[in-house]
């Protein structure tokens, strides 16, 4: 029997089968691949934290191991800057009291994030690194380059016990992303300021 492929019944049947097949395929793939994807994300997080703290020769292979070796404490702060198990602001203490803080903000097209490391004196930035979801390559995407990131090394953010905002020179053609980075850093540092003032 030859089926009419343009009949209404056939169209309904065809689309139902197609959608079920696709749904099953995508679900299986997502469930099966999730552990691998999570491991990659964790590795990347460790790499970024350790790099910000100035640990040399970190790569995705040895990241977890080095992280356990160097990370002396991973704490949560509450709004008042006190260490508390119910706090919502994480920070990592690496080796010689360098504090690494995760940051989140907005670029031009989507989220940007990164880690900033504060020196043992609690006044200066040791290093910072940034990642982004969808900034333009060659423009906003430049925030992930070494050239951009090393400008933050040694920037003071506290002078005479007063907060002095970090200023970011805009990348040509990427003013919005640069402003986003500036906002993200200052917003984060202000949140964590009570912790450094108490220390």
């Amino acid at each position, binding site marked *: 029997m030859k089926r009419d*492929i343009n009949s209404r019944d056939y169209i309904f049947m065809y*689309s139902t089968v*197609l959608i079920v097949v*696709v749904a099953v395929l995508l679900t299986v793939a997502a469930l099966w691949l999730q552990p*691998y994807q999570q491991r*990659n994300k964790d590795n990347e997080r460790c790499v970024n934290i350790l790099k910000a703290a100035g640990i040399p020769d970190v790569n995705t292979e040895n990241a977890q191991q080095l992280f356990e070796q160097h990370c002396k404490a991973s704490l949560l702060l509450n709004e008042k800057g006190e260490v508390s198990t119910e706090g919502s602001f994480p920070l990592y203490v690496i080796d010689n009291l360098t504090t690494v803080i995760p940051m989140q903000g907005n670029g031009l097209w989507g989220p940007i994030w990164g880690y900033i490391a504060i020196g043992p004196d609690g006044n200066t930035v040791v290093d910072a690194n940034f990642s982004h979801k969808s900034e333009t390559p060659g*423009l906003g995407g430049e925030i992930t380059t070494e050239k951009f990131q090393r400008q933050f090394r040694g920037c003071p953010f506290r002078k005479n016990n007063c907060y002095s905002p970090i200023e970011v020179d805009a990348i040509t*053609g990427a003013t919005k992303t640069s402003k986003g980075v500036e906002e993200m850093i200052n917003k984060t540092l202000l949140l964590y300021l009570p912790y450094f003032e108490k220390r």
Partner: protein
Amino acid sequence: MNVKKLIVEPLHKTNPVTVLVLGICSCLAVTAQLKPALVMGASVTVVTMLSNFIISLLRKGIPNRIRIIVQLVVVATLVILIDQFLKAFAYEVSKQLSVYVGLIITNCIIMGRLEAFALSHGPWESALDGLGNGLGYSLILVIVAFFRELLGSGTLLGYQIVPQSFYELGYLNNGLMILPPMALVVVGVIIWIQRTRHPEMQETTHKH
């Protein structure tokens, strides 16, 4: 089946970008640097090839009235699957690609080849046609990105090409090259050169 014709013609005579003028949008977005252009070219080639193959296998059963929807579902599924695999097993590549995954799905070349070729040809021919058109697209992308990165940033694939002594003599990178409009200008120049050298490609307009 003429393998050579299927792969070689889209590089030049039936190039999807310069002759059919498809895929221009992504051509603007990813050509500020050479590396993303290469990644994008490779991913579009893979997706065009696979989706052409799959749609060609299904072509006798697809109801005419919902064929565009079926094509879209197949392309979107393929792209998501590839993205998931890359995220699990080639994380660095997936980070490069993340921005463009959406752009791959909406690339007119893929749908264009499905409609124009895969629906009326066998699976192997269709796969080759997809490969050829993907390569044709990549070729233009790479040419445009080459000039934009070289003149806009003085680098290629991130390596410094223009020597420091040039900058000391007063040479400046052309910031305009990094901005999207210049991609259109470069594509325009490529079309101009191509059609000047091959007058048979010029459209005939009505005579006064």
